[in-house]
């Protein structure tokens, strides 16, 4: 394993210490609980927005704490959901008196730990709590034979848009409803060119031959749905888009927000190239317009090479909230 770290057991806390030192203007970090909160806390009367999950997906989630996005985030070990105490602490850190929306990704571990946290919060007489679960990954069948679709790229979009709505002063129910709506309008699909190595495991999670790619990859280095031969970017883009466009039932003339997301080890030059392919296919083959886009490493899987495509069916309101100011380490414009 070749990584810039000291002790595999201390990667998360040492990295959070760096995040805190790099962004003292935006956030504060409780290294004990590994909870990151917006500098100065949640504005009284504003709905709090919280997220949390395993680490290794940076900038998600801690890097999205700041104006216009999250009020607090809690960070589990690498690829391991936070424990209930952390969700509880993040909730309190984000509570400005108007309730808190928890954005969760649909994984058994995340949901079980969050559920226990919510039990604890309810026992503390905290009732103003809403949960939005993202499950946008079309690589996974959403059936009773699986744990349901995984939450991937849509999580970034939900956090941005719900963050903007909360900033505008929408109430708890409205923020939660928006989050669910954004998730329902989003689908994703990813591809890996290489695996990644969990620091505490020390070896790559899976192996790919030099001429193989893995289609339908998630964000935990877990193997995808099928192997395919290495192929031109155009064909990869088409393979990722087809199930996404179909599952969303996108029609000609519709507009989307596109997240062309790098998995961590793929350089920007390739991501922009892939975005060019994705946009061309959407425009020319599908008759779909790109209203807004985001190209870069936004929800990663350590140093995995590869990318994912997330499409969100757009409308004027979504575009307006998208354009609202955001100032976080990982996403920033207008502020």
């Amino acid at each position: 394993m070749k990584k810039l770290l000291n002790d595999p057991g201390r990667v998360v806390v040492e990295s959070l210490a760096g995040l805190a030192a790099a962004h003292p203007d935006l956030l504060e970090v409780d290294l004990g609980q590994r909870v990151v909160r917006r500098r100065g806390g949640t504005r009284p009367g504003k709905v709090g927005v919280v997220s949390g999950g395993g680490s290794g997906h940076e900038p998600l989630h801690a890097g999205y704490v700041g104006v216009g996005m999250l009020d607090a985030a809690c960070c589990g070990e690498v690829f391991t959901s936070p424990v209930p105490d952390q969700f509880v602490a993040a909730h309190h850190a984000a509570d400005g008196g108007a309730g808190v929306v928890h954005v969760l990704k649909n994984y058994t571990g995340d949901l079980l730990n969050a559920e226990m946290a919510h039990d604890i919060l309810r026992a503390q007489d905290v009732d103003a709590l809403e949960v939005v679960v993202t499950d946008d990954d079309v690589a996974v069948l959403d059936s009773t034979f699986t744990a349901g679709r995984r939450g991937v790229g849509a999580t970034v979009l939900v956090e941005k848009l719900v963050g903007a709505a909360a900033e505008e002063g929408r109430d708890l129910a409205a923020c939660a409803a928006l989050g669910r709506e954004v998730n329902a309008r989003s689908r994703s699909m990813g591809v890996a060119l290489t695996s990644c190595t969990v620091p505490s495991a020390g070896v790559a999670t899976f192996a790919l031959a030099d001429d193989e790619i893995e289609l339908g990859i998630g964000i935990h280095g877990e193997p995808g749905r099928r192997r395919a031969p290495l192929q031109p970017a155009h064909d990869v883009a088409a393979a990722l888009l087809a199930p996404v466009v179909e599952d969303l039932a996108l029609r000609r003339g519709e507009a989307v927000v596109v997240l062309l997301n790098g998995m961590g080890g793929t350089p920007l030059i390739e991501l922009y190239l892939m975005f060019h392919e994705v946009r061309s296919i959407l425009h020319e083959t599908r008759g779909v317009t790109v209203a807004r886009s985001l190209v870069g490493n936004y929800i990663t899987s350590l140093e995995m090479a590869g990318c994912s495509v997330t499409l969100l069916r757009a409308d004027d309101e979504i575009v307006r909230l998208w354009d609202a100011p955001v100032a976080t380490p990982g996403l920033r414009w207008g502020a």
Partner: protein
Amino acid sequence: MGSVRDDVADLTAFQSWIAETSAELDEHAGHLTELDRAIGDGDHGTNMARGFGRCAELAGEEQFPSIDAYLKKVGMTLVSTVGGASGPLYGTFFLRFAGPLAATDDAGVHALAQGLRAGVDGIVARGKAEVGDKTMYDTFAPALEAFDAAAVAGSPVAECLRACAEAADSGRDSTEPLVARKGRASYLGERSAGHLDPGASSAALLLRAAARTLA
């Protein structure tokens, strides 16, 4: 068959169970993680070793007034340190296990059977798994049945626990051909077949340790 006095597990025995499990997890963390790399995300061994490692320290840090107080603390500690899917599941197992033992300082066959059943029910309540889903429940379900069967037949604790551990091993092995329907491995569909489930494997290890320490 041992004497009545011998045929019970006291607080020290439960503390040994946790210590023994922690030692076993330290030794087999790499293997469990390897299983999890194949059909999951490669953290199960580390998660379990971290959590039980912390639990093993409890006995030296605190005086526990009773078995159930100790088991509750173990459960809470697991919940607070393991994370992932297994944290709430193993945590709940111990939190619920404590319930039926509230009134006793020495857990005999009956108390153990009740504790085990409560713990396993807790896992199902949280995780909604059924037998054949390729989860830790595939280990716990037959293990619980075997314990009960031995208990009903009047076997002493040691024998009940031995039957339980053996059934656990078989339960673990039964997961290999299965296609996962719960947890992370379910994303793999058919490709999850041909691998042991990591949680089923750690559960077998926990119940083996019980057989070595609770009687």
